[in-house]
């Protein structure tokens, strides 16, 4: 059997969901008999090629996040939102009731210790979006795994269900929003 090709990325996330994926521990060996990684922080491949499964951690907070998310959607047959940030916007979205200009001014200009500060405007920095969005507001998402982060057992159950061709189902104790 050909291995399934899997790409992963962290957008406006903290890599906690990737860490939780690694927490499946020795089951990683079993997983690697079934899948191989394309673009991922684990491979350092820079762009996503044609894949069976794309796993997105983190929400959308800037223009680069949008570009990467669209690259994944265009290349992955199945797209999974993993973790509270990808599913709901999460922690970064807690700025959504504030004005972005006010946030930047306070952090870079008016806070104590920011004398002569300036708002970063290097062209290499992706432009922040006005609001932070969960990824389903930007592209079609096939599956959601909530949790901050989802437990290793939840990720394992979900992926093994999916790879085996079953409808993924977490059930009590594995489905968590916190």
């Amino acid at each position, binding site marked *: 059997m050909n291995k399934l090709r899997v790409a992963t990325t962290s957008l406006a996330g903290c890599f906690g969901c990737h860490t939780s994926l690694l927490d499946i521990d020795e089951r990683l060996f079993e997983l690697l008999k079934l899948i191989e990684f394309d673009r991922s922080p684990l491979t350092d491949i820079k762009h996503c090629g044609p894949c069976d499964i794309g796993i997105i951690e983190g929400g959308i907070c800037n223009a680069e996040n949008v570009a990467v998310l669209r690259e994944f959607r265009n290349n992955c047959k199945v797209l999974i*939102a993993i973790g*509270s940030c990808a*599913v*709901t*916007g*999460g*922690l970064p*979205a*807690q700025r*959504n*009731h504030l004005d972005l200009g006010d946030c930047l001014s306070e952090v870079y200009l008016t806070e104590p210790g920011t004398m002569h500060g300036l708002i970063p405007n290097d062209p290499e920095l992706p432009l922040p979006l006005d*609001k932070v969005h*969960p990824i*389903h*507001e930007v592209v079609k*998402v096939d*599956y*959601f*795994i*909530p949790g*901050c982060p989802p437990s290793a057992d939840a990720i394992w159950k979900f992926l093994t269900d999916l790879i085996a061709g079953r409808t993924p*189902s*977490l059930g*009590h*104790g594995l*489905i*968590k*929003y*916190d």
Partner: protein
Amino acid sequence: MSETFLLDGEDIPFEPGQTVMQAALAAGHYIPHLCYHPEFKPHGSCKVCTVKIAGRYATSCTAPAQAGLDVASDTDEVNELRRTLVQMLFAEGNHFCPSCEKSGNCVLQALGYDLGVMTAGFRHLFPDRPVDASHPDILLDFNRCILCELCVRASCEVDGKCVFALAGRGITKHLIVNAESGRLADTEVELTDKALAVCPVGAILIKRQGFAVPIGERRYDLSPISAQALADAPRPPSGSQPCPSCEDEA
């Protein structure tokens, strides 16, 4: 022998005056619900307890039990409706579970788990709702309020104070407190009030005890809400009197 109606094909006995919900719970059959509480008058606003009776949707917490009813509750169609209602509640407020003290004890969250809600689905509104931290011992976080009116009912019917009320209409509907300043600190609320204990979400929190029970050992960590609702079930509605200010209005 009492009369019966059918719930998902099973005979449910009932006493005259019982609702479909009361009879079902008393007979050990769970119907998902959110604003219904066995100790208070049914409110019928959250619609999570919707069932199909003779092809029509009805809230089981307010529908009177009648002999011969054919009630459908645990069906794909009805559960999909309940899932959508829970999703809309999550999208409408700011329900950020990872930072909420109520996580694990929250009825909204537990319903989401039990119904298999994996995403809010809709566009999140991210409303701007400042908290009321004016009271030294009680935090009022409007971000998490789902307008179930349980605190409103408890404060009037049990505490006899009417500290809480809902104001506004439609999407602008919101919880208010009974003080000229609009601040909880200026009301008659006390730590022993039933209104505080009955909040199903993290809108009303007692300060400085949020993490006395660690995450992972909380109520709905132990078993799903469907299993626990039955344990709480057959209690008669409280026969208490409305508070004096309500009677004055009447």
